[in-house]
């Protein structure tokens, strides 16, 4: 591995996007959860929904803020580190990103202000509308960014002139072959991630005997959603995999750990892929199962990595293992879903502490699965930046020096470490405080101490850090 601007830019991109994706992955689901709570409050007028919404809105505000600031970095990095790529693909991808900004980012940002600060300034219905616009904004944003990303995996609707892409059909560009699968898989993953966070935190409160009134609602609702989405996600993942075998067979070969491919291939559970020797060490597999899963026939033919020239192969060891981590977590999620259905049927959901502990342990599961999934799909696309057409090495900025690339990489590492530590700390403090009971009127003095005027976001205990 050479320390050159290309490698440093790849590490920087991988690092910044991995950091960034944690926040959208969480806030897509959370925005919708807040919308549901606001809707329930509007409909029933029960105070508990409003308290719950305010509690999760505080956590949402911190996460969203961190998502926004790390997202701005992404939108500039295309140009700073990958300027050749920008020039080559700008005609196609520029508009998709532009549409994301004008249909999603503005919508989210404008109504976020009203959601966070406007409760006492707008009618109840308008506040619910603002929550809905933020939630819808997150979904629209997913639509455009996944369309752009999918196009890099399965480019369509273009012609190449003088080494640059020109669009022949916008419909084919936006709805490129892998896009529907990727969108469904990702949005479901985001909802699962949020659900597991809500379920885990609620389980923690139940174990500690706190906030019973609130946690029964959030625990039941989040697990109910998991019971639907966990099995659905496995089905969507399978469909996504079948499509990938059709359009990116090298990626499937790397995911499955197949060198030879062919008929009746085994499902490899454990192996140590060796790129030099072109074989797996310590392989343990179940005969015929890979063929059965991928082709739905015992003797079905699956791709092997040796079918591709050595310089066109993705790096199998990473893809092989990140894929297994993702799938493993997917099945753990399914077991939680089954546990929920079983315990609900036996009416023991709120007094089975072993199950609550499992939920607590599963709190970060969605984040890990999403990161593993993105590593699988993105490293699986290598060495291509645009599958089969543009190599990653040809996309890097020509004028970029090792010094500049190293400077930016280190700066981002340090900055994100600081921000992430602080953000996590404040979120944990908020979780420790939990949902707060209603206080209609704060005293003048309390407001002054709080430093913030009367708003729902900042009751006097807004300062969540202990004084020293």
């Amino acid at each position: 591995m050479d320390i050159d601007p290309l490698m440093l830019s790849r590490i920087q991109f991988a690092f910044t996007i991995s950091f960034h994706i944690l926040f959208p992955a969480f806030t897509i689901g959370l925005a919708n959860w807040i919308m549901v709570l606001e809707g329930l409050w509007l409909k029933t007028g029960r105070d508990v929904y409003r308290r719950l919404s305010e509690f999760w809105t505080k956590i949402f505000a911190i996460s969203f803020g961190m998502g926004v600031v790390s997202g701005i970095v992404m939108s500039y990095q295309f140009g700073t580190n990958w300027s050749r790529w920008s020039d080559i693909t700008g005609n196609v991808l520029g508009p998709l990103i532009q549409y994301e900004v004008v249909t999603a980012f503005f919508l989210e940002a404008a109504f976020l202000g009203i959601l966070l600060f406007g409760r006492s300034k707008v009618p109840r219905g308008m506040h619910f509308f603002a929550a809905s616009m933020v939630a819808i904004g997150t979904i629209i944003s997913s639509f455009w960014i996944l369309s752009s990303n999918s196009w890099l995996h399965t480019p369509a609707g273009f012609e190449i002139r003088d080494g640059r892409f020109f669009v022949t059909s916008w419909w084919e560009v936006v709805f490129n072959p892998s896009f529907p699968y990727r969108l469904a898989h990702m949005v479901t993953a985001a909802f699962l991630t949020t659900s597991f966070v809500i379920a885990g935190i609620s389980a923690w409160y139940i174990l500690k005997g706190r906030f019973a009134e609130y946690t029964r609602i959030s625990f039941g609702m989040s697990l109910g959603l998991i019971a639907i989405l966990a099995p659905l996600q496995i089905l969507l993942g399978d469909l996504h995999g079948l499509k990938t075998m059709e359009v990116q067979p090298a990626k499937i070969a790397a995911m499955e750990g197949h060198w030879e491919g062919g008929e009746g291939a085994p499902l490899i559970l454990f192996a140590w892929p060796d790129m030099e020797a072109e074989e797996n060490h310590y392989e343990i597999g179940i005969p015929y199962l890979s063929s059965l899963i991928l082709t739905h026939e015992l003797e079905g033919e699956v791709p092997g990595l040796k079918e591709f020239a050595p310089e066109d192969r993705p790096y199998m060891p990473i893809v092989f293992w990140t894929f297994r981590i993702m799938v493993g977590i997917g099945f753990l999620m399914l077991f939680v879903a089954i546990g929920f259905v079983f315990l609900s049927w036996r009416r023991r959901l709120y007094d089975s502490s072993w199950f609550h502990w499992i939920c607590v342990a599963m709190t970060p599961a969605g984040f890990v699965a999403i990161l593993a999934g993105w590593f699988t799909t993105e490293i699986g696309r290598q060495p291509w930046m645009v599958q089969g057409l543009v190599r990653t090495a040809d996309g890097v900025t020509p004028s970029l020096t090792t010094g500049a690339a190293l400077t930016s990489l280190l700066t981002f590492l340090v900055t994100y470490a600081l921000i992430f530590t602080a953000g996590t700390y404040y979120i944990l403090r908020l979780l420790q405080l939990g949902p707060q009971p209603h206080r209609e009127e704060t005293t003048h003095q309390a407001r002054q101490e709080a430093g913030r005027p009367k708003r729902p976001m900042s009751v006097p205990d807004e300062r969540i850090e202990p004084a020293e």
Partner: protein
Amino acid sequence: MEWWQDLTLIWTGIVAFAIIMYVLMDGFDLGLGILFPFAGRDTDRDVMMNTVAPVWDFNETWLILGGAGLFAAFPLAYAVILPALYLPLLAMLIALIFRGVAFEFRFKAKSSRYLWDASFHFGSLIATFVQGMALGAFIQGFDVENRAYVGGNFDWFSIFSLLTGMALVAGYALLGCTWLIWRTEGSLQEWAYKLSKPLFLAVIGFIALVSVWTPLANQTIADRWFSWPNILYLSPVPILTAALALLYWRAINKRNEVQPFALSMGLFILSFAGLAVSLWPNVIPPNISIWDAASPPETQEFLLVGMAFLIPTIVVYTIYSYYVFRGKIGEDAGYH
């Protein structure tokens, strides 16, 4: 002129609109961050942040639109300008990160509060200074060969770009100061009134300096402004600037609350117009025009269909959002 050349003109207008919207809207909240540590009391600083807490995130979205618009409509400009400004943009992004999270973190912190105060101030200051330097570098132009930037990592650094950096700090601070006059009352407003004159004089000084320096350093720009009959057509720009300056002075003396902010914005718009005149029709100075860098007609058409109704929609809910959070923000009574 071919029909697609008109299309590019429209796109130039849209990108220019995004940039000026960004400058005007994020300008005043960055300006607040620049003035932040100089406010007398901690409660004043609370109020300063509260005046923009509901809208800053929205203001900053225009920066993303500027970047995305450039990528979509002028991919070549995006691919050249961003690498040329690699290090300043890095500094700007890091500054914006620290500043952005300060809005959420500051009100949650107690013992570490001073750190978020500092990150809000220095984040705003550095982001502004770097944007100003980037502007100076842009005016001076970039070395391009074979559709790529070929200059060095530090070409953006010059005496001129230092000057434009300081000019923008003064300019944003003026926007922030006049915003405070409009949206606060009592001792904080009094303080803003006091600052409004020296800041304004500094801004006028910088505008004059940059306006003289630019044509002196660049013959093409000098010809553009001072040849007959251009000088006649372009004379409204300096004349209007002088008129706004006089109105501003009068408004401050009469203690008008809204006009100083509006007139400061007017100064920014005129300076931006002056800049556009100087550089026209280049999107990458000194010699790549908007038509050289434009994406093909099919891309621009596809975008225009959406923008035609999306941008007006955005403007409508911007107005609504500012309307919801209208009125004075006091230290105890705000947000009623």
